């Protein structure tokens, strides 16, 4: 029975999938939405109980306390033996709370947001399936099961990005996410295969024990494995160069962006690295790569976010940038800092997305319905502070947290990462600092463009506050954003000590006043700069971005470093060129020539041999028998001589 309790967080949303998928067509919106939401709430409740029970266990037993083997050998073929089991340790318990907690809030929010959608039931089916899959990923005790969850969340992401598939652009965005993710997934599965080849096991415990036991002798293999795993993480967690799918993924409904593409799924890569930190720590070269890629991602994406006009795209690039912070932390070995930022980011970025959804919702539903303007374009907004007071307040809280204004959650978690960077890796520190400046600037820009000044379109003029079912989750998330920093205060470090059995030694350190001051200054300065630059933008007939005066630098940011164009030119075009070369030259000339030649030869020979074939099957049979008898005779003679 205990086992059932342990896996019930997964089973609850699955139950929702089952019910809504089969009966959803006959149920009312309310019933569908609340059923799905309450099941996730139940899942959260159970997670909380498990969390508490885990907390009650003695500290040195917490790693093994929640190891659940269902007693079913999942795969048992030859040398491959993978038990089917789950693991609830401090790390996964924390993730379970984040996934189910934030997930529950977003489910509730979606009841309002998706109201009236013709595929309402399907949306909640996907959403529930996602929560279940994410829990599988998080609770897996082996690489293989984690990969199953990994692929399942990828599937849900794909389905939800293309949820409004009747618009071809959305379907294409879904496909892009799918294809780009596959690249990472191939690397991931190669990493898993290499792990199995090297260690002969796939459960985390066995593999880690293998790493510890064999140390030096497997160093090269571990380096290769971690590199492959990291490439997998770059796909899922949108790190350069595989980050291009995430901005497009904003085509999905906004709750999806909040849940999957900000708070949970995209952090799977960071979670995976924290989970396998034993291996990463045994591969310093990979760690250096990880830190550098993370910091570069933070910078590149932050820079891109500066000039976007789509309210969700800004947040998307911001998400990539913040994921870069977390990945950099993982690369620095500061898994606690990374996880801390993961949690706080889940709070404030979910908050920002949902608030942005509230803005979009208000623009769409209370403006002119057939309005040609884009309800997500910030140039059409402005002055919404008065129309959407509550949304404004929570967006402001989220934005300040993202910018890193103390004492909001984002400040503490970001601070911990940069402190680690300063101690261990100066280039990374510099990159992160610059991206922090960018962050504050685009947050300021976004706040100004959306909420201040005068409304710049009819939609904005007629916007009304969203219903309570949408704002209530916002308030809860805002509260979490305000209080989230307390999870791991400098000098106290509750989260760090809690996680330390799972992610390695942790020792809290007092607040570095100088660094904190610097980053507070950066945050406030960036916000102020954003405010100053955009205070009067887009109000005059001149609709150009004030930053466009920067010329090529502006274009670089606006076009997201031309990466999509580059991929189009190099990968897609290159592939086409190669294909057409293969088709016209190699295939037509070379292979077809050979094939035709062989064909002509065969036809000639066949014409000659055909006379031996009367078409009577028994004649062939006798010929075969002659062969058999001849062979047996031959072996008899050879055998006799051999003796």
């Amino acid at each position, binding site marked *: 029975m205990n086992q059932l309790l342990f896996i019930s967080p997964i089973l609850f949303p699955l139950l929702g999938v089952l019910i809504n998928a089969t009966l959803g067509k006959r149920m009312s919106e309310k019933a569908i939405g609340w059923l799905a939401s309450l099941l996730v709430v139940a899942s959260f409740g159970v997670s909380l109980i498990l969390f508490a029970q885990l907390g009650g266990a003695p500290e040195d037993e917490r790693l093994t306390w929640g190891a659940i083997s269902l007693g079913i050998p999942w795969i*048992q073929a030859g040398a491959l033996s993978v038990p089917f089991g789950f693991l609830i340790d401090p790390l996964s318990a924390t993730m379970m709370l984040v996934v189910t907690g934030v997930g529950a809030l977003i489910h509730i929010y979606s009841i309002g947001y998706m109201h009236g959608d013709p595929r309402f039931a399907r949306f909640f089916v996907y959403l529930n399936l996602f929560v279940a899959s994410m829990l599988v990923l998080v609770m897996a005790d082996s690489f293989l099961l984690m990969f199953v969850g990994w692929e399942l969340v990828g599937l849900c992401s794909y389905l939800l990005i293309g949820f409004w598939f009747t618009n071809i652009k959305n379907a294409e965005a879904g496909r892009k996410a799918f294809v780009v993710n596959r690249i990472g997934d191939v690397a991931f599965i190669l990493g898993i295969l290499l792990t199995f080849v090297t260690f002969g096991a796939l459960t985390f415990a066995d593999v880690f024990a293998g790493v510890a036991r064999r140390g030096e002798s497997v160093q090269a293999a571990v380096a290769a494995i971690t590199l492959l795993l990291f490439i997998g993480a770059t796909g899922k967690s949108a790190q350069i160069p595989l980050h291009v799918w995430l901005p497009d993924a904003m085509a999905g409904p906004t709750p999806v962006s909040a849940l999957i593409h900000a708070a949970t799924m995209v952090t799977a890569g960071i979670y995976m690295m924290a989970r396998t930190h034993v291996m990463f720590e045994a591969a310093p070269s990979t760690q250096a790569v990880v830190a550098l890629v993370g910091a570069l991602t933070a910078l590149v994406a932050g820079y891109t976010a500066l000039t976007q006009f789509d309210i969700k795209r800004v947040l998307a690039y911001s998400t990539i940038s913040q994921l870069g912070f977390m990945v950099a932390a993982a690369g620095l070995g500061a898994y606690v800092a990374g996880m801390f930022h993961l949690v706080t980011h889940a709070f404030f970025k979910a908050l920002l997305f949902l608030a942005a959804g509230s803005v979009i919702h208000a623009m769409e539903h209370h403006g002119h319905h057939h309005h040609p303007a884009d309800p997500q374009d910030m140039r059409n907004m402005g002055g919404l502070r008065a129309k959407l007071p509550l949304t404004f307040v929570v967006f402001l809280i989220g934005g300040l947290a993202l910018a890193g204004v103390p004492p909001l959650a984002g400040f503490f978690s970001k601070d911990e990462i940069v402190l680690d960077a300063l101690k261990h890796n100066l280039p990374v520190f510099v990159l992160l600092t610059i991206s922090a400046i960018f962050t504050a600037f685009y947050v300021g820009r976004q706040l100004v463009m959306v909420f201040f000044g005068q409304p710049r379109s009819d939609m904005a003029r007629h916007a009304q506050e969203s219903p309570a079912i949408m704002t209530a989750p916002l308030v809860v998330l805002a509260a979490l954003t305000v209080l989230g920093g307390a999870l791991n205060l400098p000098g106290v470090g509750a989260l760090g000590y809690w996680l330390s059995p799972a992610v390695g030694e942790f020792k809290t350190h007092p607040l570095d006043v100088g660094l904190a001051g610097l980053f507070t200054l950066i945050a406030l300065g960036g916000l102020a700069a954003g405010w100053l630059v955009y205070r009067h933008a887009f109000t005059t007939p001149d609709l150009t971005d004030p930053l466009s005066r920067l010329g090529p630098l502006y274009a670089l940011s606006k076009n997201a470093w031309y990466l999509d164009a580059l991929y189009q030119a190099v990968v897609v075009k290159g592939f086409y060129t190669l294909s057409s070369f293969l088709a016209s030259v190699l295939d037509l000339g070379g292979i077809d020539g050979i094939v035709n030649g062989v064909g002509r030869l065969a036809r000639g020979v066949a014409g000659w041999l055909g006379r031996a074939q009367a078409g*009577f099957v*028994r004649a062939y049979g006798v010929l075969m*028998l*002659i062969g058999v*008898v001849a062979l*047996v005779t031959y072996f*008899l003679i050879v055998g006799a001589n051999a003796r």
Partner: protein
Amino acid sequence: MSPDLLLFLIIALVAVAAALGMLFSRSALYAALFLIMNFGAVAVLYLLLNAPFLAVVQVSVYAGAIMVLFLFVIMLLGAERLGRDPEPATMRWQRPLAIVLAVVLIVQAVYVFAARAGAAPAVAEAVDAGPLNIGKTLINSYLLPFEVIAIVLLAAMIGAVVLTRDK
């Protein structure tokens, strides 16, 4: 002569007689009955060879299913009385040659047996060949063939349905 050997000889005689009976019977139905008899004899040999599971499967698969299917088709087609079509002119040589070759094959087999049987090592200790052990071996060591055979069966099922479906 040990009772084992005696039993073997009797059953072997039945098996060979049934095979010959099948070979030379004028009616397909009698041939099928002779074949069933042969299969039954082989099933008993399996019992002697410490393969009780296979013996039972032999009876239920070959006798219980395959041969019933044969009988069914024979009756369905009314094809039990075998026609005596004249041999095609180009095939006159075929039948005598086949008989001669088959006899040569038998002679060779007997020769090998006579020359080498004495040199054969004694049989090893019998292993437990009950359903439990068979099942375990099947799932552990022969998992892939087992899955493949499942697909073969599925394909055969689809094939049979497609072939006999009225267009």
